């Protein structure tokens, strides 16, 4: 029989099986890894705030003496001489992101409801197919994707980016797993007994119960679309995205490194903000993300 010789506590809770040495080791490891992750992010922000003379200082400094927002203003002036206004790139990104994400939310949540809560022949086979699609990277399909899109005549249209993104399987997978674990069958059953159609049950009972999963699905889809750069399916300048415009700015070399950093900050601020606001909801959804073997 094991004896508890000393019980370590954290706050009011007794903590078993924890040694001070282990705690220290873990804290050190975590700090090193944390710095590895954090320093580059911090460096972008610092670079974006540096005035021109500080950008060219040797050695480069990890802080900024006279912070300025000029680099952010430069974003608009730098792109103003290109024949597509800068705002158009931003519009494209926002438009593609909103349409694709909404479409994915509607289609994937309907499919997730059917797969999670309705029993019909072929259900397992379809779900297996979707799980398998998570196992390979979509770039494998680029070539044949192109052939299919061109046979639809969708090359060089918004459709080539928006429509395929509506069938992103990650969101469907997470939503289906979450519905299975957090929507009790009895609630659905009683709605059906009250005469609600299956579609109504989905819309008014199941969907409100899985709001955390909506957010997770949306952020999964959002981050891909928001970050989509120069697509091989789009070659008209006026249909290209913000991310593509950034790459053009960055290709201007060292003289534009301030503006480049500023655009990266703008680019990453949006997904990070979306995540910060929804973090607890997303983690809640991920609780049911596990895969049975």
């Amino acid at each position: 029989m094991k004896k508890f010789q000393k019980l370590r506590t954290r706050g009011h809770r007794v903590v078993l099986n924890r040694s001070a040495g282990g705690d220290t080791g873990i804290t050190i490891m975590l700090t090193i890894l944390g710095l590895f992750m954090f320093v580059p992010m911090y460096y972008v922000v610092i670079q974006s705030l540096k005035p021109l003379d500080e950008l060219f200082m040797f050695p480069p400094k990890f802080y900024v003496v006279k912070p300025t927002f000029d680099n952010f203003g430069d974003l608009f002036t730098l792109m103003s001489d290109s024949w597509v206004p800068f705002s158009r790139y931003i519009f494209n990104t926002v438009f593609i992101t909103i349409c694709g994400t909404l479409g994915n939310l509607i289609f994937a949540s309907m499919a997730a409801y059917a797969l999670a809560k309705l029993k019909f022949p072929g259900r397992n086979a379809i779900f297996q197919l979707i799980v398998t699609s998570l196992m390979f990277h979509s770039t494998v399909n680029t070539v044949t994707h192109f052939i299919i899109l061109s046979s639809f005549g969708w090359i060089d249209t918004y459709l080539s980016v928006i429509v395929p993104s509506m069938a992103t399987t990650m969101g469907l997978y997470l939503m289906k797993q979450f519905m299975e674990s957090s929507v009790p069958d009895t609630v659905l059953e009683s709605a059906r007994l009250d005469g609600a159609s299956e579609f109504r049950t989905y819309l008014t009972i199941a969907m409100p119960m899985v709001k955390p999963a909506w957010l997770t699905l949306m952020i999964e889809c959002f981050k891909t679309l928001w970050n989509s750069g120069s697509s091989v399916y789009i070659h008209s300048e006026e249909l290209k995205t913000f991310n593509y415009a950034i790459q053009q700015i960055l290709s201007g070399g060292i003289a534009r490194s301030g503006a480049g950093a500023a655009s990266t900050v703008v680019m990453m601020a949006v997904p990070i903000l979306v995540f910060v606001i929804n973090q607890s909801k997303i983690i809640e959804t991920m609780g049911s993300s596990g895969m049975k073997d």
Partner: protein
Amino acid sequence: MSENTTDAKRPVKRSEVSKLRWTWQEMKNNKTAYFMLAPFLLLFLIFTVLPVVLSVFLSFTDFNMLEMPNLKGIQNYLDLFLNDEIFILACQNTLIFACVTGPVSYILALLVAWFINELPPKIRAVVTLVFYAPSISGNAYLIWKTLFSSDSYGWANAVLMKYGFISSPILWFQDASYVMPLCIVVALWTSLGTAFLSFIAGLQTIDRSLYEAAAVDGIKNRWQELWYITLPTMRPQLMFGAVLAITNSFGFGAVVDALCGFPSVDYAAHTIMHHLSDYGGARYEIGYASAIAVLLFIVMISANFVVKKALSKVGE
């Protein structure tokens, strides 16, 4: 839609009819399910399943986008392995890349999630953000290009020069011996994504009483706890994370492109992905490119099955 649902829900007894009739009946009773599934499934079939099937077919032909494809049998595959040195090089690079980034990113995600699990919620949320942010920040990894810039304005060169390790700047992304390690580091930096969140969530859902029971049963330290209680309990999350880690470890081509340009110097970071887009996108040898795609597809799927098999042994 609403009138058929009340009696449509009445299950048909299996014994009353033959298997085929029963299935057909069940399908009719669940019309709504198919309607709800249809939009997604249609797009999924067109944009995910059909491309794979088409690739397999085209890989046996010499299709070039202009002429009708002619069947070539397995000639494309033979060419890949026997007459294409760069493909063999790409295979090596891909394997090195995947074998390092896959397991390391996976273990990193798991360890960090486990380390931060016992922090107070507020602090944990901040730390989670620090680790997760790079993976959702799009092309923020381009900052590594500034950090490892080839002139003395790059931070790495500046530090090395200041302390006298080197006298002239190193051309990080133009030197074949640095390209691969650097790309791996950057890939790892962006790799703590969805799987990482899944691990965090998985750890939080574990019932605390399991640990108390384990302590009574003689579990002595946190490592035993991890192996005997934590990991087996969160096995579903481990599976999910593994699938994502494998998929991503083969898909870092964009990172390499952005950092080293294409093609990378001496093909030092040339992966199968690059070979694929070279033949498919630049040379329009679709048949040949499809053969590459099919091989890559097979490698990814089999890697997944092997790893899933291995994971089912955790904690035994």
